[in-house]
C-alpha cells in the first residue's frame, strides 16, 4: 500500500510539477497511449454497451408492461446508463483490455531489465512510461463512457421502435426529459475516478513484477481482479455520496 501511494505521489509530481521545472513527459507518447488504451477499445466498448442498452429495454419493457407503463422504458434506459451502467461497463471493458495490457507490458519490461536500463540512462520510468498511460486513461475512459452511453441508448432505441412501436422522436424526447445534467455529470465524474484507479493499479502491479513470465501472469491477474474490486467499491461510495448530497 505504501508503494502504491508513493507511485501516486510520483505520478502527480511528474505530471504537474516536473514539466515546469525540468524534463516533462512526451506528448507523442500520450497520444500513442490514447490510441492503444482508448481508440482500440472502441469495438469492445460498443458491443458491450449496445448489448446492455438492448437488454435494459427488453427487461424494462417486460416489467413496465404489467403496469401499462412501457412509455417509461426510455427513462429507465437513459438514467441507468448515464448514472451506473455506462461508466461501469466501459470501465470493465477497459480493465480487461487495456489495464491488463498495461500491467503485462510494464511487467515484461521489468523482468527483461528494460526498466533498470531506463533508470541507468537517467530516464525516470514513471515519467517515461507511467505518466503517458495515466494521462491517456484519464482522457479516454470518460470519452469512451460518453460513447458507450450513446451506443447503449441506440441499443435501447432499436428495441423500442421495433417491439414497442415507439416513435423515434418520442424516444429521444422522453430520454432528454428524464435525465438531468447531474445524471450525466455524475456518470462522467465516476469514470474519471475509475480511470485513475484502473491505470494506477495496472502500473503499480506491472512495475512490482518479480520472478519472470510466471510473475507477469500473476501480476496481470491480480491487477484485473483488484481493479474491478476497487472500481465497484468506489462506485458504491460515490453513489452513496451523490445520493446523500442530492
Amino acid at each position: 500500500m505504501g508503494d502504491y501511494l508513493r507511485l501516486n505521489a510520483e505520478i502527480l509530481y511528474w505530471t504537474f510539477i516536473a514539466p515546469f521545472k525540468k524534463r516533462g513527459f512526451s506528448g507523442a507518447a500520450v497520444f500513442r497511449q490514447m490510441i492503444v488504451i482508448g481508440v482500440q477499445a472502441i469495438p469492445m466498448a460498443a458491443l458491450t454497451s449496445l448489448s446492455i442498452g438492448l437488454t435494459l429495454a427488453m427487461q424494462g419493457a417486460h416489467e413496465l408492461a404489467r403496469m401499462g407503463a412501457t412509455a417509461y422504458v426510455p427513462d429507465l434506459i437513459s438514467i441507468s446508463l448515464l448514472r451506473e451502467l455506462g461508466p461501469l461497463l466501459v470501465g470493465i471493458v477497459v480493465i480487461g483490455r487495456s489495464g491488463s495490457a498495461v500491467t503485462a507490458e510494464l511487467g515484461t519490461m521489468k523482468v527483461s531489465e528494460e526498466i533498470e536500463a531506463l533508470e541507468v540512462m537517467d530516464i525516470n520510468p514513471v515519467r517515461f512510461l507511467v505518466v503517458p498511460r495515466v494521462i491517456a486513461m484519464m482522457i479516454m475512459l470518460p470519452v469512451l463512457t460518453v460513447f458507450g452511453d450513446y451506443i447503449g441508448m441506440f441499443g435501447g432505441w432499436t428495441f423500442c421502435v421495433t417491439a414497442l412501436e415507439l416513435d423515434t422522436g418520442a424516444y429521444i424526447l422522453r430520454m432528454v426529459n428524464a435525465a438531468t445534467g447531474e445524471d450525466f455529470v455524475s456518470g462522467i465524474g465516476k469514470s474519471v475516478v475509475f480511470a485513475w484507479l484502473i491505470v494506477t493499479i495496472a502500473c503499480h502491479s506491472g512495475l512490482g513484477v518479480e520472478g519472470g513470465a510466471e510473475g507477469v501472469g500473476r501480476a496481470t491477474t491480480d491487477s484485473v481482479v483488484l481493479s474491478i474490486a476497487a472500481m465497484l467499491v468506489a462506485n458504491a461510495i460515490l453513489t452513496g455520496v451523490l445520493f446523500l448530497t442530492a
Partner: protein
Amino acid sequence: MSAPPVIEVHDLVREFNGRRVLNGISFQVEQGDVMIIMGGSGCGKSTLLRHIIGSIQPTSGSVKLFGREITNMTPAERSDVRGRFGMLFQSGALLQSLTVGENVALPLIDRGIDPEIADIVLKMKLELVGLTGFEHLKPAQISGGMKKRVGLARALALDPELLFSDEPTAGLDPIMTAVVDKLTLDLTRKLGMTAVVVTHDMTSAFRIGTKMIMLGTGAHQGKIIARGTPDEIRQCGIPEVMQFINGEPDGPTPMKMSKEDYLQSLLEG
C-alpha cells in the same frame, strides 16, 4: 595532485536473506583502465556491477564513482553521475516497443538533443558496432548477438567517460567478439574511456583487460580471490584461478560431488 580513481569500492558487503553474496569487496579503477571482473556462475559479478551503478544499495561499505559516494546520493546528484557512464546489459535490455534506431537515440532525445543531430550520432554509433542499416528493425526481428551490439551502441550514445559491460561478448561469433574487443580497446586506449567488463570469455578478457579481479564461490563466496594485471593473474598459481582461466572440469572448484558424497546422498534419499 593526481585525479581520484574513477571507481573506488571499499569493503562492500551485500546480504540477501542472510546469505552473503558480496563479502568485503575492495578495489579501485583508474582512468583508462579496462577492469575485468570474472568468476564462476553465481559468484556475485552482476550483483557487484549493480552496486557500482547504484541500482542496488549495499548492506554496508562504500562505492565512489568519480570521487563521489553513490550509496547516499540525492536524485539530482545521481542523475548527474548517470549522465557520465553507459551500461551494456547482459540481455541488451532494449525497449521492445521502439526500433533499433529509437533505442540508440533514446538517451540523446530524452536529454533534449536536436533530433537531426541525434540521427547523425545514431548512425555513427550503429556503424561502430557494425549495424548500419538496421535502425528501422524492432528488437524482436534481430538476433541475440545483434541486440547486444545495439545495447552497446546505446550505452555509447552519450560518449560516456565510463562504460560498464555485463557479458559483452556472450552470444557473439568470434569475428564480432574481436570487433567489440577492438572497439573497447580503441575507446579506452585512444579516448581515455574507462571500462568495467564482467565476462566469462577468457580470450576476450586477456585481450582487453589491464586489471583483473576474480570473485570466489563456495567457501570464498563474494570475496576477491585474485587481483592484478593479466600477466600477474596468469602466473598467480592460485589453483581456483588456474582452473577457471584454463577451463578445466576438475580442480579445487568442484562442479560435481565426489563419488562417496554422491553415493551417500542417494542412500540418504
